[in-house]
């Protein structure tokens, strides 16, 4: 690092001596460390991944066998691989709940509420927690005769307890619920920030004009945070395909909870099918890029004005 910096200095001075060249020579060097890291750890992997995805390779063998589109065909036809898209739907559905809860509390806490900062802190706090810790906290909550079962017993719902993580019909719902617990705080703080950036005079003016809370929400808050809400929905789609930590830590992908990334991880690092795993990653990447493109089309930048 420091070697690079000292190398920059003479170049700077040389540049000052000849004004014509200074613009072209030195500043580029300042970007170089960032650019090298970016290319080595983002662009080269993406390029390699494309290359691997058309081959059959175990990651060790010096030679790779060309495989054409076989890996892609398998991602879309093999049930084991197709299923992971469906698992993503659980998390996508959960993100609606997440956004709704976050929006409700952001609106409530943007008005005068006692212990406002305390509530804000509590609602946001789970987002800061370590993913492994969250996984263990919820393994403990969901275990048979654990916290959830005990609470249900106290509420007289004792006969409705299940194997929350063991029952394949329920496991994904439990895991998606954990994900809601963990990430609602982020949406909440983002929405709250957007609401609070609306100038207070607008509410006062509206109140003078006789607007009630619902009118204020409908005509002031909603347009002001439309952009961040739409953005949250688009992030929710790519987020629900990239779920990894919660299912990996809590069930390891057992009981039908293998998400896209858990499956890609196991394919690559446990079954050593680098080509197939790369094809999965390429598909995911294309989906994310497509969504971002749609987002740019649907939400042009000029809409930023109010938020």
């Amino acid at each position: 690092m420091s070697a690079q910096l000292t190398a920059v200095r003479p170049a700077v001075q040389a540049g000052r001596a000849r004004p014509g060249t200074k613009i072209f020579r030195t500043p580029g060097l300042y970007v170089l460390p960032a650019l090298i890291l970016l290319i080595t750890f983002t662009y080269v992997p993406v390029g390699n991944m494309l290359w691997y995805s058309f081959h059959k390779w175990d990651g060790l063998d010096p030679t790779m066998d060309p495989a054409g589109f076989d890996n892609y065909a398998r991602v879309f036809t093999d049930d084991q691989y197709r299923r992971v898209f469906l698992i993503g739907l659980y998390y996508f559905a959960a993100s609606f709940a997440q956004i709704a809860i976050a929006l409700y509390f952001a609106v409530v806490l943007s008005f005068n509420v006692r212990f406002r900062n305390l509530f804000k802190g509590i609602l946001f706090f789970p987002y800061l927690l370590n993913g492994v810790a969250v996984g263990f906290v919820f393994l403990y909550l969901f275990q048979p005769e654990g916290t959830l079962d005990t609470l249900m017993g106290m509420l007289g719902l004792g006969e409705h307890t299940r194997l929350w993580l063991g029952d394949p019909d329920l496991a994904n719902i439990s895991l998606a619920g954990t994900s809601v617990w963990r990430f609602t705080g982020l949406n909440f703080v983002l929405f709250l920030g957007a609401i609070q950036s609306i100038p207070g005079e607008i509410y006062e003016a509206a109140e003078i004009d006789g607007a009630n809370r619902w009118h204020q929400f409908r005509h002031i808050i909603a347009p002001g945070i439309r952009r961040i809400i739409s953005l949250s929905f688009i992030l929710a789609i790519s987020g629900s395909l990239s779920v990894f930590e919660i299912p990996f830590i809590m069930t390891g992908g057992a009981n039908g909870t293998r998400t896209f990334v858990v499956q890609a991880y196991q394919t690559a690092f446990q079954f050593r099918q680098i080509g197939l795993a790369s094809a999965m990653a390429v598909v995911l990447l294309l989906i994310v890029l497509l969504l971002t493109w749609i987002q740019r089309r649907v939400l042009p930048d000029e809409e930023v004005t109010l938020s």
Partner: protein
Amino acid sequence: MSRVARAAKYASLILASLAVLIPLVVVLFAAFKTHAEYNTTGPLTPPRNWLNFHNFATAWTAGDMLRGFWNTTFILVVSLTGTVAVGTLAAYAISRFVFPFKRLVLGLFLVAALVPGVTTQVATYQIVKSMGLVNTPWSAIVLFMGTDIVSIYIFIQFMQSIPQSIDQAAMIDGANRFTVYRKVILPLMKPAIATVVIIKGIAIYNEFYIPFLYLRSPNLSVISTALFRFKGPYGAQWETIAACTMIVIIPTVVIFLLLQRFIYNGITAGATK
């Protein structure tokens, strides 16, 4: 507001707070219970002795948590220093100078922000392996430094609010570009650096996938992977797992209480770039 609406509002807030806190509090309860007590009492029963630190001691030594914290701290400090140095230098060049291929460079940073890190690990692993960095802390460090585009955005945004006339004045006084960066820009960037250090610091402390993939050897455990190791062998000793979970959570609580305002601002700045 009517009395019913008010009551409903507070009821919903209290309910949500309970939903956040109960899962954590029961783990705290379990962490203070003896093994026999854990087996005989329900999860909602508070521990008999709040000063029973036995489980914490077991977890601390069995999980080799001191090493975990040391490794996490080392990786955290080096990658944060690196991110700030690399990011501010790049932002300085991008926001202040014209250089060839600048638009291309900017475009590369922009597009890279869209690539989710988890998806490319299959291929990144081969590169890190070919550099001989697997099973050294440097694998995590270069990846934390190299995959960070958000902080460059934050730096660029902040730098655009520093008037150019300040650097021009320093230049007229004879400072070269690096001196301007070092003596003028960097000190003025403190708020942006604080934001990046906080949000990135929390992200690195919580990161699981990268250390799990690259730091397999037990003496390279960071706190996430050290905690994860409890999963198999301690399956029947929840009170120990609970204590270790609390050991990992407590630093986050302390940081949050101390730096609340900065964390909120940082999260908002980082997510809406």
